[in-house]
Each structure stands twice: as structure tokens, then as C-alpha cells.
């Protein structure tokens, strides 16, 4: 117990346990669930599917992590996915030769730049105009869906472009391209936040904006950066999503993904109140949610129970992670600290006894 304690107390312990349990439970329904084979020169198997399928959510959760670390939130990611997918597919569909690599690259570039602009829009509303993040990004959540529908003219745009299809459905060196892209973006984000001072400054702003300002941190610029990054991540997710199905659906692409992303971030141990963030946690959370979706499918849970089943798993996981719940339920087995460790709100510290 004592040697295991640090592991058990690690904030990613319960999500990791949940992920393993979910994966193992799949064995009951499909005996070769863990089998990974090489077929037609690329990796093949359920685990590979899960990884590839989780890439859009991983990317969106990555951007969301940094936004939430600044005590903000980005509700517009689903709409950005729809817009970016729509623009990319529209540009590709207008090519004379849809299989032209340069043409596809140009379309992708336009789409990526657009995602940066959409992120900038959110960032300006939050950092410069001072609108509450939930409201500021709600504008693009609603409006962006409309823009996507205007771009696609309310139709589904189908493309037949093998270069474009490679992004979401292709393989390189036996590995799905989407996984490589997501891994690269995650790696860059980890390097940028942990090898530079970006992560520290973001955490400082998220924990205490006032103290950060008085320490000379330019919070506005940082806030702008994280929203632009979140837009970029959603944009790349949109490319992968639309490329995987070779079509753009302005109505449904990325619908409700913001909620899954927020969930992934929270499961990963980043608090919605801002401050400390964990990219690894969010990635784990995103993969966990995708695994849950797949498990529901392989377990043959009837469609009408899917959402309910998901909710139950999430509730259990959240309870397992909640310190309050854990001390209440498991507290008596441990040498418990009294719950009054911190100063009670009413009882002031010496300096605050009188004003």
C-alpha cells in the first residue's frame, strides 16, 4: 500500500485504470481485440482504429487544455471543424484535377489560415474586448455553424481526391497519417509549453490574473495566443475529420465535440478554474472517451442506451477522481487528515482580522 500510494495518488491514475478496464472489457465481446497485424503494408486492428478515431478529439482537447488553463473556455471548436472542413472540401472540389497534390496543399493551407483567423476572432473578443470566454466563443459556436452551412450551401460536399483522403485515412510508414499529425501537434505543444516559459506564464495567468499582471506578465497576449492555438487545433481536427469521410457536412461535422473535449480536459486533471494543466492528461482523456465510444459499439449496447451508458461511466470516473468523494468513501481506511486543513473561509488569518 505504502509503496503504491504515490502511484495511486497520481492525478492520472484513475483515468488510466478506466482506460485499461475499458480496453480489457472489450475482450469479452471480441477475442482478438488486442491483435495488431500488418495488412496491406499498414497496421491493422482495433487499437489502431481507436487511436486514429481519437485524433480529432485529441487535437481539440489539446487546444482546449491551454484555453482552460487560462481560466477560459472555447465552445466554438465544433463550428471551426465544420467551417474548415467545408472550405477545404469546397476548394478541393473546385480543382480541375482533384488528385493534384499542389492543389490539395493550397486548399489545406487556406483552411489552416482560416482556422487561425477564427481563433484570433475568439482571442480578440476575450482578450481585447473583454467578453467572458463562454459568451465570446458561443458567438462562433452558433454563427460558425451557420457560416459552414452557407459555405456548403446546406449540402454535403463530396470530394474524390486521394491526396486529400490521405490526411485522415492514409498511412505512412505503416502508421495512420492522422495519428502522425496529431502526435506531431501534441509534441510541438508540449515542447512549446514546457521547453519555453509559455506553460509557466499560462498557468500563472490562469491561477491569479492580478498577481500575474503585477509580476509583469502580459496576460492579453498570452490569452490571444491560446485561443489562436485552439482554433488551429480545431482546424487540423476539421481537416482530418472531413478527409476521413471525404466529405464536408456543415450541419453535423464536429457537433458537440466541444463537450467531449472539455470532458477530456477535466478527466485529464486540468481544473476548469484555470492554472495547472496537463497535456498528457487531456490526450489520455480524449483516448479514453474514444475507447468508451468504441466499447459501447463492440459491446452491442443498443443505440438508445449509448448516451446513458456513457454518462454512467463518466460519473463513476469523476467520482473516483473527486478528492471529497474519495475521503468520504475511502477515508476511514486511511490515516485521514482532518478536513479543516486550510483556513476556514470565515476565520481570517492574522493579517485579516480587522480591516
Amino acid at each position, binding site marked *: 500500500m505504502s509503496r503504491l500510494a504515490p502511484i495511486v495518488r497520481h492525478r492520472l491514475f484513475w483515468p488510466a485504470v478506466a482506460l485499461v478496464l475499458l480496453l480489457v472489457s472489450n475482450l469479452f465481446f471480441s477475442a482478438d481485440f488486442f491483435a495488431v497485424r500488418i495488412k496491406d503494408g499498414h497496421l491493422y486492428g482495433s487499437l489502431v482504429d481507436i487511436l486514429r478515431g481519437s485524433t480529432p478529439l485529441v487535437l481539440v482537447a489539446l487546444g482546449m487544455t491551454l484555453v482552460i488553463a487560462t481560466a477560459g473556455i472555447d465552445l466554438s471548436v465544433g463550428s471551426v471543424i465544420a467551417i474548415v472542413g467545408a472550405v477545404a472540401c469546397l476548394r478541393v472540389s473546385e480543382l480541375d484535377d482533384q488528385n493534384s497534390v499542389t492543389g490539395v496543399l493550397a486548399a489545406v493551407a487556406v483552411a489552416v489560415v482560416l482556422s487561425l483567423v477564427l481563433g484570433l476572432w475568439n482571442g480578440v473578443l476575450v482578450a481585447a474586448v473583454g467578453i467572458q470566454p463562454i459568451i465570446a466563443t458561443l458567438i462562433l459556436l452558433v454563427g460558425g455553424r451557420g457560416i459552414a452551412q452557407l459555405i456548403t450551401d446546406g449540402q454535403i460536399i463530396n470530394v474524390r481526391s486521394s491526396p486529400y483522403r490521405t490526411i485522415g485515412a492514409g498511412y505512412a510508414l505503416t502508421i495512420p497519417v492522422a495519428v502522425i499529425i496529431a502526435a506531431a501537434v501534441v509534441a510541438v505543444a508540449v515542447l512549446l509549453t514546457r521547453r519555453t516559459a509559455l506553460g*509557466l506564464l499560462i498557468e500563472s495567468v490562469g491561477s491569479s490574473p492580478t498577481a500575474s*499582471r503585477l509580476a509583469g506578465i502580459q496576460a492579453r497576449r498570452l490569452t490571444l495566443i491560446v485561443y489562436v492555438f485552439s482554433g488551429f487545433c480545431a482546424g487540423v481536427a476539421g481537416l482530418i475529420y472531413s478527409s476521413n469521410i471525404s466529405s464536408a457536412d456543415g450541419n453535423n461535422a464536429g457537433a458537440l465535440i466541444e463537450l467531449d473535449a472539455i470532458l477530456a480536459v477535466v478527466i485529464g486533471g486540468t481544473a476548469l478554474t484555470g492554472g495547472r494543466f496537463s497535456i498528457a492528461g487531456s490526450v489520455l482523456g480524449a483516448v479514453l472517451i474514444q475507447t468508451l465510444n468504441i466499447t459501447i459499439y463492440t459491446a452491442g449496447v443498443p443505440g438508445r442506451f449509448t448516451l446513458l451508458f456513457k454518462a454512467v461511466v463518466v460519473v463513476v470516473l469523476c467520482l473516483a477522481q473527486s478528492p471529497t468523494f474519495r475521503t468520504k468513501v475511502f477515508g476511514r481506511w486511511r490515516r485521514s487528515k482532518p478536513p479543516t486543513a486550510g483556513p476556514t473561509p470565515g476565520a481570517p488569518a492574522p493579517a485579516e482580522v*480587522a*480591516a
Partner: protein
Amino acid sequence: MGEPTPAQEPILEMTGVGKVFPGVVALADVDFRLYPGEVHALMGENGAGKSTLIKVLTGVYDIDAGSIRLNGEDVRFSGPLQAQRAGISTVYQEVNLCPNLSVAENIFIGREPRRFGAIQWRRMRRRSAELLRGLDLDLDVTALLGSYSIAIQQMVAIARAVDISAKVLILDEPTSSLDASEVEQLFAVMRRLKREGLAIVFVSHFLDQVYDIADRMTVLRNGKRVGEYRVAELPQAQLVSAMIGKELAVLEELEEQEKPSTAALEQGEPVLAATGVARKGAIEPFSLTIHQGEVVGLAGLLGSGRTELARLLFAADKADQGTFSFGTDTVSMRGPRTAMEHGVAFSSENRRTEGVVGELTVRENIVLALQASRGWARPIPRGRQDELVDKYIKALDIRPANPDTQVRNLSGGNQQKVLLARWLITEPKLLIVDEPTRGIDVGAKAEIQRLLAQLSGDGMAVLFISAELEEVLRLSHKIAVLRDRRLVEQLDNTDDVDVDRILATIASGSATGEDS
């Protein structure tokens, strides 16, 4: 000692009241008497126990010792609601009404006149208007409360309080955000209520206002009652020394040190010169020059504008007027970053909310300001971080000496040291420290004072703010005295300057008014 003004029983009598928090005696054996028809000022410095006494009176805290008698009956409040029902109402500095509801709704919220369950809007509006007219206020009671000034909002709060239960009214710092004419308006209302027999407890750190409105006062210091006085019988200077007291200096040795004379320092280079700087509602125009190696102390009561002045020098708040120059350059101060670029560092008095970032570690907190000025793209190499952090953990004796501890788990004194370390590694030319010794233990206090003396010896300019005048006297070469948001005097800290001299200046508004 003041005799009760009228020959009648006190409406409220507290005897031997004690209140202890873990590690702090907030109130010890405090007596307090309040008579109908008087305005009674509750006086005391920061931490003297005023707020605790008010919270005991309003039922927020239960008492550990003593008794409270209201109208001759022993009472014990289990919560604010009971206190209110018994007839004690409070209006706080921050008006706690709803600005987005109408004036009438605010006055009657929670107790709306009803018939058959439906709110009688017309009756509510009529009663509200009557109540306010009783206070000589003619307001549109259907307008949103938020559309009126803070002063009017406060009076609406008073109208509500008086209408609910009119025996004892507590006004906690009601004037701190009012201008002079609004204060007059409030005082007119208070005088009217007093004539009607209401007992009013008035808490304010504006001495002139206390002398203007109050009949008697009770002075607290360190949780004990110093005395109860008639306002007319206690000169301001005596009040101030009663509030501050004369404690034995912890750090006699600092006074022994030979300080360079102010004249010699003023030959040196000015680090920062502020000319005609002011901010509306915070501080009147002032000019102040700080030289290399000079410690300038700010003396004045709480609310006299000490913090406001310091914040302007760091551009934590923006000045409305005036110029700043560093050396020979005149600089427009756009924000803390501008100040930092010119070598100014600022350690706020609100250590927990504006100083350290509790969630981050000691290491992260210490490197924060230096990192911020380098920009995110140029991280301080880990080796250099360790070197700096270790050096200052040792130099300032920060405990626990573990750079990876979360700062929120440190004691107040150690948090203050972390904050100082944060600024010292930026190698500032001017260090502004606002109440660095407040709420920390004696040992840490002494260390911080010694450190500041040493830094100024090495050529750093220091602006030092403390409510404890002994500290200011011990450290400063020059003392700037503030009163009612004005810098009234700059004294060279020569041998003939002592606490009495500063108190006289604070009390009278000028150094010559010692006879007041």
C-alpha cells in the same frame, strides 16, 4: 474616560468579550457600550479587532467569552439573521444590494408587501418613496439601483436597514468611496437618524470625519480596548497615539547604524522622480523623488493613500496626470511592464491575491517576474533557475527550503520572502514594498527589515510602506507623510524626528501643528 452622554441605559452593552481564532487572539476582554441617539466611532489600526467586534455584534461570529446585552437582556446570536431580527443592522463598505433591481425592490426584497400571495407593487413603491423622503431623499424608486451613485446606494441600504429593524445601525467604512459632498449628504442622514433615537456605530479611518460626526468613540488596539472617550475631549494627536500605541522596537540595532545623511543621498542620482502625479479618487497630486540608496518611508493611517501612491509609481494603476522620469528620461507609464523596464519592482500589500501565485511552486514564483520581462520565448535555463532560487532560499531563509513546494502551503512570512526574492532576482533599481511585515511573525519581520537596510546600503532605492511607524522611522532616510489622500509633508529622518513628530503631522496635516 467618557461618561455616558444621556442619563439612560445603554441600548447595547458588551462586557469582557473575547474571541480567539487558531493562533490569534482577535478580541480580549473588550467592553463596548452604545447609547440610543449617539454616533459612536469604533477606532483602531489595521488588525486592532474592529471587524471582529462588528462580526460578533452582527452574529457572524459567536463569542468565546463575555456577554452581550441588548436592551437590558442577555442575547446570543447564532447568525446574522438573528442579530437583524433583534434590531442590529449593518451597512457595509461594499453595498450588498442588487444593482440590477429597482430601488423599491431592493428596499423590500425578501419582505415584499403581499396580498393573496401577489406582490403589491404600488404599495411597495409608495412605502419606498416615503422611507426615502424620511431621509430627505427624493429618488425615482422604480429606477435601477445601479443607476445611482455609490453614496445614494448606501443610503438606500440604510433606508432598508432602518426599516427592517431600527435600534442599532452599524456603518462599516461607509465613506471610503464617497466624495466630500456625498459624505455631507450621508452625515445629514446620520444626524437625522440620531435625532430619532437610533444608535449608530461608525467605523472610518478618516479622522476628520470621525471628529465631524461622532459623539463618543471606543479605541481598540491589538484586540484590546484602549479606552472609551468623548470625541470632544480627545485631541486628534492623542487619538492617533492611542490607536497606534508605543511598542518596544524589535530591532534596536538598526537605529544604531550610521545612516548616510539625506543631503548626501540627494547628491546622488535620482532613480525615480514623480512630478504632479495624481489619480482621481485615489490620491491628490504629489511630487516625490527617490535617490539611489535612499529609503523613503510612507507614513499615514490606513486609507491615507499610501498604497495608492505606491501603485501609481509602479503603474499598477494609471495616473491621470503628472510625469514620471527615470534618471533623465521622462517616461509615459503604460503599465507594470513599463515600470519594470526602468527597474522598478513592486511587492503588493495583498500578498495572497496580488503577490504570490499560490498554485505555483516556490521556484516558479521566484522566477516569475524575471521570466515575464524576458518574454516566454526566452526561458531561464534550468541550471540558472536552480542557482538563483537556491541562492535566495538561503539568503532569505525561506522555509521549507524546498523549491518545489506549492507557495500556498507557506506561512505568510515565507510567502513575503518568496515575493521579495521574485523582485530581487530582477535586480531592481527601486524596490517598492507595501506592508512587507504585516501579519508575519517577529523574527521574519526583523529579517525583512535587515534585508531592506542592507539592500539600500548596496545602492538600491527603497520605498517602504508600513502601518508601524517605528519600522518606518528605523529604516527610512526620508519620510513622506500622507493624510486623507494627500502627501502633506516630507521629513528628513534626522535625530529630532520621532514617532510623536510624525503622529503630530498625521493628526494635524502639517509638521508645525504640534499644538493641536
